[in-house]
């Protein structure tokens, strides 16, 4: 059970890192258009 005293704080640190990564992806527009990229594969024009 002692391992939890290291693992839980470690999980918190990990959570902060993930949170920061998510903050970046949300505010830089990674979720703005979730469909276009998928559709671009089947679209005709090469532009």
């Amino acid at each position: 059970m002692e391992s939890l005293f290291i693992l839980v704080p470690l999980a918190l640190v990990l959570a902060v890192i993930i949170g920061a990564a998510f903050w970046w992806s949300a505010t830089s527009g990674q979720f703005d258009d979730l469909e276009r990229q998928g559709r671009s594969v089947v679209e005709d024009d090469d532009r």
Partner: protein
Amino acid sequence: MPPSISPPPVGADSATAGATGAATGQRASCVVDVFDMHCAACAVTVEQALRDQPGVQSARVHYATQRAQISFDPTQVSLDKLLLCIERMGYSADAAGSENRAEIVRRQRHRRIWGFGLATFCAMQIMMLTLPRFLAGADIEPELAPLLDWSALALVLPVMWWSARPFYQGAARELRLRRPGMDCAITLGIVTAFAGSVWHLLANTGALYFDSVAMFVALLLGVRWLEWEQRERNQSVIQQAANATVRGSALLVRDGLDGVNMRQTPVDDLVAGDRVWVRAGEAIPVDGLLDSEVAVCDESLLTGEAVSVRHQRGEAVVAGAINRGAPITVRATATAAASTAQRLLLLADNAAKPEALAFADVVARFFMPALLLLAVGTFVALLPAGVSTATERAIAVLIISCPCALALAAPAAQARAFAGLLSRGVVLRRASALERLARGNAFLLDKTGTLSDPAVAQVTELRPGVTESYALSIIAALEQAANHPLAVALRGSGAVVESVTDAAWLPGQGVSGTIGGRAYRFGRGSYVGRCNDDNRSERRLWLTDDQGTVCSLDLSERLREDAPMLVRQLQASGRVELLSGDHPERASFVASTLGIEVSEGSASPERKAARVQRLQQEGSTVVMIGDGINDSVGFAGADVAIAVHGATDAARASADLICERPGLMPIAEAQIYARRVVRVVRWNFGWAIAYNLLAIPFAIAGAVNPLVASVGMAGSSAIVLLNVMRLGGDRAKFPEPSRGR
């Protein structure tokens, strides 16, 4: 930062300018985007606040378009100050039409994704930490418990700080307006549960609600985000309709020393006496008198009459009529605001607001006090048992009775309904209309443009030896010269293979030309030299050459294919009537074809509105289906107004539902769908209320431990959401509503 008022964009097309800031002496007007209004009640309060500002002459806030139209005295108050005034109320504002709007919407979306994602992520982490705590109960190692609890606190802090912020802001806004609503209830629940949990943690006694708080915030944010996305998507469709009416510019004609010159002028600035140049195909901007020799106007928007009207010099022309002939000049007799089309639009807009206010008031006056009373009552009643117990029970009551499921019951279903209807090709503009559509039992249908497509010709008489397609191709060739709706339809009916020489067009009468050395005339009986021998002559056209009649055409309307189906379905739910601006004979003919018993022709807009009122007085819920400006007065009064595909801007602007898919099928589907939504919403409300009524006594009695409280609360919301999912959204894949019509 909001820009200051720009000088009037003289010569520039104001449709491309940002704020249509036009200062004329002591008067300036502008259009402003207002963000974050989530009900018509908000629009009313913003409007009130703007009007209270010194120097503001008039202010109108449209909730549907999220826009404010303000005219003010620039010497007394600046645009910056007005924007600040709106921002002080807790909304954000920006000059309309600017690039900023897209940017602001983008940033709002980012904020929502961040808030929702963060809350969901933290809620899941907290669950991981608290679950062993619940399961182990007293068996947990004493040193381990604080570690898990304090970690949970660390994870709930970002949720409280970032994710829940919209609720605090909403609550602050509601308090400032002295109308506490859902945001207040939610904030109260979150903050009390959080503060109580922190206190319990410090005192090392009682239950912790961190997981419930995070879960609660995450669920609510998710639902609000979904709803917001739908609203933004609808916005672009509505915006189009509004843009066409809120602003625009006209060509003002001035007689200068160097001859006639023209200047682009905002329509709002036109005054009586101005001469306006109207290009072919353009709508006449203001009521006026015709200054050109002759004009052919398509007034079907105003009168429902499909046949174009011919006007002579000096005759009155109405705003909103479309010039189908050569360019004309019109001498304005009224300002744009006073002109027919505008008047109808304003009438339609005003009818929309009061109901949302009423609902907000019910929540503020009854729900919030009841909730507070219950929590405080529990606390006071249990005080003899000790402060700790009393606090714990009061929090339990607040948490468990927090209107989570109740708050989700309607909006979640409505958000789903937005998406569901959109995939069926229908834009839902007022959520409350769904309920009324579901119980609608009187249906008023417009004819031209709704049940039928106008101006489709049928060959009735044909000279022996001439094929129908040959006759049609000659007509199509002749009609190249003309420019009116009928000509467009006729051009489409035959392939143009012949070339025409010395073509001529006498508007309102007919066309003539020489094809293959033979002189043809095509038009009304009087034009081709045939007497008007029967009462259908108005609708009969003749093609003649030097030997006499080649063929005759009957102008008829073609009933839309799905019209009988729609009428049958509507008749199953109530009475169906046909109200048309067209000739009574035509109206009753169409009605009898469709099996509609009551029909009325030559119905003016006012007459339609009166009929709506009469039916309402008889206790019916009136659903009106139409497409023209002449329907929009009736639309404003009707319980539900549905604009069919291709409806005019005026009709769209005042409709509750707008069809973006051709045909009448979307209406039939919308009715069925509305009933399903209403069933689900009712079920949700029933469940949420039953859950609260059952759970509150248990909470007061202290029979609810943290596990039951959080599972119960999250569970009740989840059930509501799952029930909504049952509605199903996307039916047949329908292409995105086209941006242009």
